[in-house]
């Protein structure tokens, strides 16, 4: 990933933008954090938030005119937060927690004319930066207009603390100065820069026009002179004084450093924010009013009011995606991690697992207000990893071997309809439907051949999407080329896909093929007469690959309606649908997360589930959900058992099913000899269902176990436990060493356990 691309992506995710309140605060107080502290009774924390940004918090906190309030998101669902009242509560009950440090003196003397809040702020900020700040005022006290506040709003004693603060940072104060025509000239001679606080009596007598300072820098006509503060057409705003004082201090600092006064100041003062916060579903709440308005909030009232803050943030994608939740981060930070991961030359690439755990499903892109394309980022990164040989071999190997099997001698098949030598259509059930429900594939195929003219060919295989998802570009293109050639050999018929992954892959990567979804085809055909609808309402689980295929989704719903299944829609269907964990091969690269994703998808509805992707169906079934495949109801003859209870076949089961399907169809439909099985296939195994489930999670196939036992029985190389007569043997067919604990039994070899590792033992082939 190029740095420029990273920047662009980072800017797309607006999760880190300011909430509306801070954006509308002229000095960007972290109101959200302030509210969180108060709501959690962390009084010191709340005060720390103010101390960090607010000058003279004891003063300003008492009289802040809360420009943030009218921007508060809460006003769309109730009243805006009573920010000022809470600030007042905070500074009147909790003394200062954080005293900002004063940087070492670095020369440069600045005169601050006037003693209002703008002057005070400018003097304080400059003194903190290590500049000599000299306050010159005609008054006898500081505060300017602040002195007009009633004693109970702003006690004189608190203003006096302000003076102490200025002294403590080394600000020099001169009261009772006489402002006259020569005054400014003398001051400019004695100092390097000047700030004029317009909230100062007698400013008019100075020979300078302070009425129109530059809005960004506050510079006025005279070199090194800046002006701000005071009343505007809108009256006197406390926060305006603070803003101007701070802005002027920054300008003066830049002026003294002889750098640009204007560069990169867009985010100073009130600024726009792009933060999106979903408020649907948040109940409206009105403002908590203090029982005694004069006394302000009690602690209890303050907590209740602060708790109304919705803690504005986006996180919309994270709220729905099991992967983002697992890695507990939002896309902006994840792309940074991905970028850093790619940049590592020597050392551990800690983000590999994360990159391989995205389901590439695109849900986040649909949810995101700015269409963040995390799936594209993760997929291209995987391709880069493969190209640079940094892809962890174990992440996708098992899935790719599964694909190889589907495309191999024992599972793949391409034929015209029996008795014909041309095909108008070509049924492509896909590897997973063949693995999950071979009889349904047969029934569906027979239905198509009986009801459609022009010949319906059959192609068993795999569309190659596992290669694409795992970043194996070359393998993917090779697979696609072979497939296109094969379809060409059959006369380029219209491909009919049962799996929407195959559909989208063909559409995107083989535009020369014509493709239609089985669902769109069935929708236009007469449906099987014996299609059986269960009585209860069902929840449709759209697969993630139809997210952008509204017509397929509509056809599916038409068919469901026609066969009389009543459905209950839930919000995470259609465009927003979840991935079951198969997408992006996530369930292979991150087994526990795969289960979580399947569970999350399954939990979207209380009704029995109705899927139309074999992988969705099986993955949800594996979590214990009652879920059927739509074809189970269209072709009920295929399965005698309740389709809702059909178990997940597991990886071994799928291999078995694909091989049997080919064998069965070859012999029954085409009267051909099926391919010969290798010798180890004859080994009979007895495996308890629970162990079977465990082996599935460990990615160990029955076939691997057969190879281990075959090898051990033939060579005699194995361990034995004399206590129970179990054997333990190992074998490394290619890149994984499998260990099997077993025992000969009457029905076959009883398997007690199996596990594997990738490390190479002495004597094993590399």
């Amino acid at each position: 990933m190029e740095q420029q691309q990273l920047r662009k992506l980072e800017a797309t995710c607006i999760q880190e933008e300011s909430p509306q309140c801070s954006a509308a605060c002229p000095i960007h107080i972290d109101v959200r954090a302030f509210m969180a502290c108060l709501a959690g009774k962390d009084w010191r924390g709340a005060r720390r938030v103010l101390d960090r940004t607010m000058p003279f918090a004891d003063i300003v906190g008492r009289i802040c005119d809360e420009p943030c309030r009218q921007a508060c998101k809460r006003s769309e669902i109730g009243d805006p937060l009573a920010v000022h009242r809470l600030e007042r509560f905070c500074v009147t009950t909790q003394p200062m927690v954080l005293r900002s440090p004063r940087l070492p003196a670095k020369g440069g003397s600045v005169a601050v004319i006037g003693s209002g809040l703008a002057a005070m702020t400018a003097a304080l900020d400059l003194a903190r930066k290590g500049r000599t700040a000299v306050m010159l005022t005609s008054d006898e006290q500081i505060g300017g207009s602040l002195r007009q506040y009633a004693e109970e709003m702003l006690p004189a004693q608190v203003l006096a603390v302000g003076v102490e603060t200025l002294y403590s940072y080394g600000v020099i104060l001169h009261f009772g100065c006489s402002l006259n025509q020569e005054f400014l000239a003398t001051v400019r001679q004695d100092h390097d820069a000047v700030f004029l606080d317009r909230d100062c009596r007698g400013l008019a007598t100075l020979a300078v026009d302070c009425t129109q300072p530059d809005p960004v820098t506050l510079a006025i006509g005279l070199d090194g002179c800046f002006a701000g503060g005071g009343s505007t057409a809108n009256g006197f705003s406390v926060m305006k004084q603070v803003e101007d004082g701070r802005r002027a201090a920054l300008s003066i600092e830049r002026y003294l450093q002889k750098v640009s006064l204007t560069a990169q100041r867009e985010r100073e003062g009130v600024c726009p924010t792009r933060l999106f916060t979903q408020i649907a579903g948040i109940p409206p709440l009105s403002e908590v009013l203090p029982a005694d308005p004069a006394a302000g909030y009690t602690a209890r009232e303050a907590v209740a009011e602060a708790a109304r803050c919705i803690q504005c943030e986006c996180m919309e994608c994270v709220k729905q995606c099991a992967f983002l939740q697992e890695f507990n981060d939002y896309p902006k930070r994840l792309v940074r991690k991905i970028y850093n991961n790619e940049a590592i030359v020597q050392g551990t690439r800690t983000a590999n697992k994360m990159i391989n755990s995205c389901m590439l499903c695109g849900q986040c892109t649909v949810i995101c207000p700015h269409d963040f394309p995390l799936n594209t980022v993760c997929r291209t990164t995987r391709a880069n990893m493969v190209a640079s040989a940094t892809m962890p071999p174990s992440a996708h190997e098992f899935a790719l071997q599964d694909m190889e099997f589907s495309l191999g001698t024992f599972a793949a098949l391409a034929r015209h309809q029996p008795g014909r030598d041309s095909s108008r259509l070509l049924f492509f059930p896909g590897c997973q439907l063949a693995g999950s429900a071979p009889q349904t594939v047969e029934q569906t195929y027979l239905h198509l051949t009986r009801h459609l003219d022009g010949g319906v060919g059959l192609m068993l295989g795999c569309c190659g999407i596992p290669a694409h998802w795992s970043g194996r570009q070359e393998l993917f293109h090779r697979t696609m080329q072979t497939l296109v050639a094969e379809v060409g050999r059959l006369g380029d018929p219209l491909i009919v896909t049962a799996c929407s992954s195959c559909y989208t892959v063909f559409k995107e990567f083989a535009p020369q093929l014509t493709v239609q979804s089985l669902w769109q085809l069935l929708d236009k055909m007469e449906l099987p007469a014996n299609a059986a609808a269960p009585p209860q309402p069902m929840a449709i689980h759209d697969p993630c690959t139809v997210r952008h295929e509204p017509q397929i989704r509509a056809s599916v719903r038409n068919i469901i309606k026609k066969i009389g299944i009543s459905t209950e829609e839930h919000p995470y269907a259609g465009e927003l649908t979840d991935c079951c964990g198969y997408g992006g091969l996530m369930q292979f690269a991150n087994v526990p997360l795969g289960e979580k994703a399947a569970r999350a998808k399954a939990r979207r509805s209380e009704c029995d589930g109705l899927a139309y992707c074999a992988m969705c169906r099986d993955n949800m079934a594996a979590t214990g959900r009652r879920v059927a495949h739509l074809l189970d109801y269209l072709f009920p003859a295929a399965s005698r058992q309740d389709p809702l209870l059909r178990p997940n076949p597991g990886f071994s089961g799928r291999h078995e099913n694909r091989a049997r399907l080919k064998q069965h169809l070859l012999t029954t439909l085409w009267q051909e000899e099926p391919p010969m099985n290798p010798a180890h296939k004859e080994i009979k195994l007895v495996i308890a269902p629970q162990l079977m489930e465990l082996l599935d999670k460990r990615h160990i196939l029955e076939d691997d176990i057969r190879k281990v036992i075959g090898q051990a029985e033939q060579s005699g190389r194995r361990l034995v436990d004399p206590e129970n007569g179990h054997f333990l043997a190992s074998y490394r067919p290619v890149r994984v060493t499998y260990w099997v604990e077993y025992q000969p039994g009457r029905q076959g070899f009883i398997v007690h356990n199996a596990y594997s590792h990738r490390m190479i033992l002495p004597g094993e082939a590399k």
Partner: protein
Amino acid sequence: MSTFSFISETAWRCASCNKELHPRKVNVEYMGSVFNVELMVCPVCGFVLIPENLALGKMLEVEQLLEDK
């Protein structure tokens, strides 16, 4: 090269040699890295035992670390 030891008493015996397993240092390898480890081995034919907890524990951990290097 430092040696890690993963020896523990075991009921498994070599079936073909009819021998108890004994601790022995052997080299295991992954992604080009070689480790000298002490494992339970048949003293006659050299059959190396990798117990389940080692394969799915420490060994897996090291494999994944090497894959991310």
